[in-house]
Each structure stands twice: as structure tokens, then as C-alpha cells.
């Protein structure tokens, strides 16, 4: 009997592949797909804290309400501006640092890579609190620095016009470790022979970058671009820990709006609708990135 099982299944790669996939699939179904489907169902229901025992189907009413709500579009604008501010620098800064690090020997490179990645393992709360202190308009490090240089101090996150920019600057200063690792790994994979050949052809370093490095980094750049866009559209921590969406809703990101709708207003159906719309926005922007960048990617 055992021999039969052994003959038919034990050495059958497909069988074991399905077994292992089934574990992952079950996990994903339970913790990813089920909540996602439930969220989509909620988005078509009138479900809120006050009627949780009696939710009912209301068709597209939640969608109509959200899409005609000026506050929703304000949050879309805030998130879009934040994304535009954060994503390009999320590529330029890590790429520049990775290119600079490439000139050093391996041990120094590894040290700096670890140093840049370190903020990523620090608790988001600690990170936010540290940045909050640095940009504190009354007693922060940045204003102290500006005073030292004889420059006017700023209100930073206490200003309706500067708050979003401050959160963007905070992002520039604090969240590039992972992208540096990706770019460094991608740079390591580019064959040295290509640069040697270019050198023989007397190509300038600028030309070598544009003709060799950049095209071969495009798969990584596409990946970085997409995860950065997704991440910045889902930005939440800065608004939650530092600005509370203010002042005057200047930093009310989409995710923060969803949070407020869910927890403060107790409108689960509307919050679910916003989540679905956010998901559609992220998918649409990601597809656009694929469309624009994907055709030029050389794998």
C-alpha cells in the first residue's frame, strides 16, 4: 500500500507543488481574497455601526455618494500631489546613491547599504515621532538649522501650504533603503564586459549610463516605480502620527480619509467603497506605468 503511494505520489513533483501551493493559496484566500471580496460586497451595502445587524444592498449608491463628495476628490488630489512629489525622488535618490556606492569596494558598499536600510527596520511610530521633532515648528532641529544659517524659520507641518510638502520632504529623507538595495543588486547584475566594450569605443561616462546602465535597470525601475506609486497612494503614517490630516485637511490622504470614515464615522460601506476606488486608482496608475515603461523594458 505504502509502496503504491510512494510510487504514485511521493516522487511526483506536481503533487508536491500543488500541496505547497495549496498552503499558500489557503493562506491568501483566508487573509487576502476573503477580506477583499468582503470589502467589495460591503461597498454595495448600507452597512454602518448603527445598523450592523441589518445591512442591506443599495447598488451603486455608495459609489455615487463618494464620487460626488468634494472631500473625496480633495483627498484624491492630496494623494496624487504626494505621489508626484515622492515617487520621482524615490527613483532618483536611490539610483544616485547606488551609482555612487558602486564605485566603492564591497565591504564599504555593504556598510552603506545596511546604513541606508536601517531606518526601514525602525518602528514607523518612532520614525514619525523623530521626524515630527526634526520639523517641529516651535522647537525643531530644522528651524534651529535655518536660524543658524540666518534663514527664516518655517511653520512646516503647521502651515496649510507647507504641510504636504513637509511630509514629502520627510519621505525623501527617510525611506530609500529598500530601493537602494534593489538598485545596488541590479547594478551588480550588469555584465562588466558591456562597460569594457563601451570604454574601448571611448564612450563617455554619461553616454555609458544612458546606453547601458539605464536600459538594463529599467525592469528594476519599473518595479520601484510601481511599488512606490502603490505605497504613496496608500500613504497613511505621516497623516496619522504627525498631522492628523490637517491643518485644514491639507494632508488628508485617501487612506486617512478611509480611516476616518471607518473609525470616526462608523460608515463601513462607504469606507469599503473608498477602498475599492483606491484599489482601482492604484491598478489604473500601475497599468499606465506598465504601458509607458513596460514597452521599453529589456529583460
Amino acid at each position, binding site marked *: 500500500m505504502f509502496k503504491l503511494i510512494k510510487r504514485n505520489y511521493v516522487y511526483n513533483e506536481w503533487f508536491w507543488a500543488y500541496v505547497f501551493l495549496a498552503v499558500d493559496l489557503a493562506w491568501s484566500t483566508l487573509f487576502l481574497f476573503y477580506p477583499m471580496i468582503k470589502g467589495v460586497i460591503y461597498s454595495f451595502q448600507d452597512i454602518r455601526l448603527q445598523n450592523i445587524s441589518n445591512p442591506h444592498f443599495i447598488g451603486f449608491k455608495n459609489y455615487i455618494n463618494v464620487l460626488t463628495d468634494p472631500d473625496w476628490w480633495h483627498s484624491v488630489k492630496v494623494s496624487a500631489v504626494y505621489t508626484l512629489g515622492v515617487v520621482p525622488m524615490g527613483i532618483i535618490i536611490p539610483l544616485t546613491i547606488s551609482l555612487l556606492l558602486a564605485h566603492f569596494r564591497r565591504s564599504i558598499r555593504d556598510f552603506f547599504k545596511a546604513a541606508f536600510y536601517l531606518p526601514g527596520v525602525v518602528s514607523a511610530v518612532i520614525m514619525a515621532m523623530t521626524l515630527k521633532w526634526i520639523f517641529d515648528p516651535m522647537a525643531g532641529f530644522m528651524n534651529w538649522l535655518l536660524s543658524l544659517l540666518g534663514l527664516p524659520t518655517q511653520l512646516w507641518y503647521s502651515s496649510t*501650504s507647507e504641510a504636504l510638502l513637509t511630509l514629502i520632504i520627510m519621505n525623501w529623507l527617510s525611506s530609500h533603503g529598500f530601493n537602494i538595495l534593489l538598485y545596488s543588486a541590479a547594478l551588480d547584475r550588469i555584465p562588466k564586459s558591456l562597460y569594457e566594450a563601451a570604454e574601448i569605443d571611448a564612450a563617455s561616462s554619461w553616454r555609458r549610463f544612458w546606453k547601458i546602465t539605464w536600459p538594463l535597470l529599467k525592469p528594476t525601475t519599473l518595479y520601484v516605480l510601481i511599488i512606490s506609486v502603490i505605497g504613496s497612494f496608500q500613504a497613511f503614517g505621516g497623516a496619522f502620527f504627525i498631522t492628523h490630516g490637517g491643518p485644514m485637511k491639507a494632508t488628508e490622504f485617501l487612506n486617512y480619509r478611509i480611516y476616518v470614515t471607518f473609525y470616526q464615522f462608523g460608515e463601513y460601506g462607504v469606507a469599503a467603497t473608498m477602498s475599492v476606488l483606491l484599489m482601482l486608482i492604484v491598478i489604473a496608475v500601475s497599468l499606465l506605468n506598465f504601458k509607458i515603461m513596460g514597452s521599453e523594458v529589456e529583460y
Partner: protein
Amino acid sequence: MKRSLAIVITLLLALMIMSSALAVASTDTITALLPFRPNTPFGAYLGQVFNLFEQTHPGVKIKWISGGSWGDYIKKLGTMLGARQGPDVAYGNANYLFVPGRGAGLASADSLTIPDKYFTKDERLGMGAAVIGSVSIPGRGIVVWPWHLYIGGISTMIANEDILREAGFDPNKIRKNGWTIKQFLELGSKVVKDLNGDGKPDRWLFYPVNSDHMRIGIFPVYLSKKRPLLEQWTLDYFFDTKTGKLKDPELLHRAFQYLYDLVHKYKYAPAAAVSKSMGDASDAFLRGELAFVANGPDYLSTVKEHNRMVLEGQIKGKVIHAGIVPMPYLNEPGHGPIRPGLAVYGFYNFKQNPYKGDEHTKHVMEFCDFITNIVFQPILAAEGFMSPDRRLFATRYAMAANLYDTNDPSVRYWLNDMRNNALPSLSQYACVAFTKAFREAKGKWFHDSFIPALEGMIAGKLTADEAFNEVKVAAEKLPYPRVNKDKLRDITNSINKLIKEEQEESKMFK
């Protein structure tokens, strides 16, 4: 032999699993979501009470879920309720549970009744009007066991009495006589100073943050107007309970201008603090940088803890003498001192419908009775496990103001004042007189229009006129009908009845 051994082992395993399952099945677990932390002295005390309950009720276990900070606790409760995983027992005040826009808002309650089923008429009379916070919602299975009374933080300010005395103001006189906005501004001119000589003020009257801008900035003008009791003590400050319209718009406009002037004209509160949190304000107060914070009286415990740590050398800083003072009021005809609000805090049973005979519900009911039993109240007071304001105990047997010894004269003043004069908040009753659609819309109005307008004004982006207009226009757009007239009539009748009961009861204590 091997086969027999396998059978025996299998049977033993099955027996073990079955006995474990039976043991689990025979243990009834009550989940209690509480904002107290088990690792604090008070938490440890409650833990002992819970252990005592478990010992006297074999087979019943208490699963204590700690909610963290009050804000986190309210969010956690809301989330649990939203996920239909509400705890058996939660602690709180009806305002938090019924006000729309709060995490655990249950504003759709169609009617609220005092649970006669669990309290005799005599007991209810003993509880007096304070029992107004003790409600159950028919069909929803929410029953409350009142535990203690709490001075509404909305009408109290915590003052750094050292700063007040330095400026020539006697906090005891302020408590005794009240004080006007004019006096408050005079204090500001003496308090706001550049102490380190860098040319910028580093001591302020208050931070215009979170709710402090409301309590110290807007309410002194807006709430000092004398109004009928029903209007005075409804939690909804801004909308008329009878019409649903914005209450006294001209006065609200003046309140906006007052806050604007405090920040931009007099510069007694820093505009740059607009994005700071209540925690930041609390820290600044402990550093001696603020003369006032608007907080609940239990903040005095935080100050005491700060002082203890300073005296023991655990932290650097100065000992701060803090106390509650009333809010200043507008010294004009028709205005007067703002009376303290009073809320009933207790244990709410969420999950179960009123006892119908099942064992779990019975255990939950017994547990709530046990922890709110009057036997524990003097122990709590004597051991100092409750902050001073909580020593005005409200139990199902004695809701009237039994004033225990308190060490803090400011608290004693307030407690006496309340015992003689104040009525508890009527908020949840007035709240449910508004239509459901209006309640939901005004919750959003507050978040999406009122607070952003205030923040814009404090940050200097809007003038007081512009901010007020934004708020007014947004309020006018809220949906009609706003008031459920039938419900309002019932509510008004029941409130009047309770007020009479309170008056009768208060005679007993004079």
C-alpha cells in the same frame, strides 16, 4: 503487540482531547474590554477583584482585553462592534457610546429606556437623575451598570496654579467666584513671556490644538450664554435641539473672533502649534510652558505622577501645582459662569440581550453586579486606586453624591458644586431627537467643515469671518428634516420627570 499499543495510545489521546474539550466547554469566558492597564496599581487592584469573582464563580473566566489609551480604547471598541465581535463588557460613558461621529457611536437608537428589569423603583430613585446615563436599548441588548460620576472635561480647564499665582491670580478665588474673559485676557498679558531671552515667547496660555481650541477658545463665549436646561446640557453644542438649526450663529461668530484674537491679535496661543496633539499640549504643560490645558480631571493624576518622578529624581523638571478651574465666561447680560458637566461611567454589557435564562448572560450580569458592588467602592477610595474625581461614587445602590475624602481642594470644590447644583449630561436623549440622517451629516460637518475652518483660522489662512462663513454655509446645507418631533416630545417629558426626581433627591442631601 504493536497494533494493541497503537490502539491504546489512540484511545488515550482521544480521551485527553475529549476531556480537554469538556473542560473548555464547561468554562464560561466573559470578555471585558477595559481602558485600564493591568500593569498599573489600579489595574492590579481590578485584577484582584476579577480573581475574586472567578474564585466565587467556579467555571467562569474573565478575559481582560486592555484597550491602551482612551482614544485607542474607543477605536478598539468601535472596531470590535463593527466586526460584530463586541466584548461582553466594556467600560465607558454613554456619551462615547451614543454620540454620532465617535468610534463606538450607536446613535441610531430609536428609544432609550432605563432598564427597570434590573433596577427597582427605589433603586432608581436612589440613583437620581444621574441614572440618565444608564440606559438600555430595547432589542439591542445593551445594559449599563453605573459605577461612578465624572466631571465633564468639556467644562473644566486644568491650570498651572504656580503660573497663576505668579501673575497675581488666586486659583481658589477663581474657583469660588468664577472669572470673566476680561480677567483671562489680563492673565494672558502677564503669563505669555520670553523666558530664555531669544526674543520669542516660550510660555503660553494654551496650545490651540485638538479640542483645546474649542474648550478654551470657542466655548467661553459660546457656552456662557444662559439657556434652558435642555439646551444647556445637551452634548450638541451647535444645533438647536428643537429646530435642528445652528444655535445662536451671531454668538458663534463672536466665539470664532475671540479665538482668532487669542492667537493672532493678543498672541497668547501659538499658531504654530495648530498641528500638535493633545499629548503635545499635555507634555508642554508638564514642562511649565502652558498655563492651561483642557482635559478631564483625571489629568491631575498625570500631574501628580510627574511630580512624584521629579521629586524622586527619575526625571528632570519642576514640580507643578495644578488644579481645576472653571472656564472664563463672557461678562455680558444673559451670560454667566459655565456649569460643569457630569457624566456617568459604568460597565456596559454589549453582547447579550437582557437575561433570558442562558448561563453566559447570567454570568455576565453577575460579573457586572460584582464589580460595581458598593462593597468595593470604599476600598477603591481608601487605597487611592481611583483618581480624586472618581471618588464621587455612583453605584446601583447609591448613585447620589457620596462625597468621600479627597485631597485636592479644587476637586472638592467641583464635587460640592455638582452635588448641590449640577445635573448630568442629557446628551444622549437630545441626541436621539435628531433624525438619523441629520445626526450622521452633522458628524461629518464637524470633521469636514468645523475643525478644518478652525485650523485654517488658527494657521492664519482664514480670517474669523471667513472661517465662520464656511462653517455656517456648510451647516445650512445639512439635510432636513433634522428633528424627530414625536421623539423630542417623549424625551422632553422624560427629562422633566427626571429633573423633578433629582430635585426631590437633592433635598435629602442638603
